[in-house]
């Protein structure tokens, strides 16, 4: 492999992450149920890709990215993390969820804190995640997911109060992140 720039690797990592997430999602509907070993392997690929993605982002010039619509993007990521959780095989899926939720955590930290008490809870980890804070722009490899509307419904903006709920949910995913590397 010669002359692979950081950019190429970055693009490749994003693509592999996108493919992996869609595979993980598709495996929920396959006949016979979730396969533990396959899900494990998928999560390992995602972890590799995420590590390579973040390390290649650091080596590039830092991009000043405005966290546009932090609620929206974090809500999408929350949906991603919520989806695999109800399954009966929490661990490998949590690994997969870990990747998505860690991304959402970094964005949560950037969002304006109406919820100061949650910010305080977040801050100890914030220091350890200082490196990841730089990856502040919404990663664009996550597929956009919005709830499918029933006929007659219409979409409305999430109320401000839901910001608190979002942060609360991110605390749950935060604790998952701490548990997983323990073994």
């Amino acid at each position, binding site marked *: 492999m010669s002359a692979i720039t950081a950019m190429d690797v970055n693009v*490749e*990592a994003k693509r*592999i992450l996108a*493919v992996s997430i869609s*595979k993980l999602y598709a495996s929920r509907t396959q*006949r*016979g*149920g979730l*396969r*533990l*070993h*396959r899900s*494990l*392997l998928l999560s*390992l*690929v995602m*972890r*590799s*890709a995420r590590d*390579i993605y973040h390390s290649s982002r650091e080596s590039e010039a830092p991009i000043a990215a405005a966290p546009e619509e932090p609620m929206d993007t974090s809500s999408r990521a929350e949906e991603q993390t919520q989806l695999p959780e109800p399954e*009966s*095989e929490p*661990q490998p899926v949590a690994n997969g969820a870990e990747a998505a939720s860690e991304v959402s955590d970094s964005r949560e930290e950037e969002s304006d804190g109406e919820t100061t008490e949650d910010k305080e809870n977040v801050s100890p980890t914030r220091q350890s995640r200082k490196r990841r804070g730089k990856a502040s722009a919404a990663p664009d490899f996550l597929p956009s997911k919005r709830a499918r509307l029933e006929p007659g419904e219409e979409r409305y903006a999430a109320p401000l109060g839901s910001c608190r709920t979002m942060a609360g949910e991110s605390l749950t995913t935060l604790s998952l992140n701490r548990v997983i590397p323990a*073994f």
Partner: protein
Amino acid sequence: MEEENDTRKVNNSFLRDHNYATEADIISTVEFNSTGELLATGDKGGRVVVFQREQESKTQPQRRGEYNVYSTFQSHEPEFDYLKSLEIEEKINKIKWLPQQNAAYFLLSTNDKTVKLWKISERDKRPEGYNLKDEDGRIRDPATITSLRVPVLQPMDLMVEATARRVFSNAHTYHINSISVNSDLQTFISTDDLRVNLWNLEITDRSFSILISSCFPSTGSPSQLFSFLCDKTRRLLVSINFEEPEDPSTRSFFSEIISSISDVKFSHNGRYLMTRDYLTVKVWDLQMENKPLETYQVHDYLRGKLCSLYENDCIFDKFECVWNGSDSVIMTGSYNNFFRMFDRNTKRDVTLEASRENSKPRAILKPRKVCVGGKRRKDEISVDSLDFSKKILHTTWHPHENIIAVAATNNLYIFQDKVN
């Protein structure tokens, strides 16, 4: 090794002339019994087909013990787990024969969740001349019975029956990936990704369980698929600590997947272990855990294509590997219906193809070659022309003769050594 060959097809004659395969006919496992007299195949539709070798006849020496269908039965049906809202596939993951103890044959077959013990027995006589019922089975009017007779066994056409003798279920949370029979003939083990269950063949409502707690890979080391086998000396190999340190220069996104082990086989003499990962086959000495004795490249030309193999899911294919009877040759499958044999002594290897075009009976298989460089010779095939939908995952070798069975999607190929 030069071979003549003899083709058998598992699917119905209706489908024989058509070039598509129904998914239910895809062979998912093949296994010789301990004498090599019987060959069992399991398919995705939950069926088991058993082939029996013809007795060699002096009048037709060229028909050297061909395999014919002996018994076909439906081993597993699709089930639905209502608690988890999951369908349980009927696909047969593994078949293992029990050593023969009497006239009947016994095998264990398993799908994702349930192991079954099947008895296959022959019936070539039946009793006739009952007193109380007539030949059709209808009860006779007692008033018409004037004499007493003893039913006599009369010969009938050979019938081979398969009956399920035991069902071992509800013991696995995850999908069963292998079973192994102990040489004491009383116990066997079934394993899924995180649990090993030790069963007694007589007892179906409980088993000993070993839970694997420390198999999750730490960051940076390859993941391993743990398969558990009872070897001839009855040692239970609890975990595979055989791990080659990873070469950091070859690290890629897919390092863990391609180093993940898809099959493990003990050698017949019990001294060696063979592991198959995505690109290589490795032979390990049981005494030496940190590096393999021998490493064989199965299809290294795929190393540059891992990304597209990841996208089309081929990188998750689990290839099996197998020893010959004397442990001198090892064999494993590849894509494009190719399979590879490695002679451990001469270090020679060969690539052969299991396909209908090349498989007229008694034709000798021609070695194939995949072209990796620029210039392709006439008979070579380039990497990009390989058909990745034609994969040989399951192969088996006769326990002491040079006969192999190779499953190519829904077709079963049986190859024998050339007769001089």
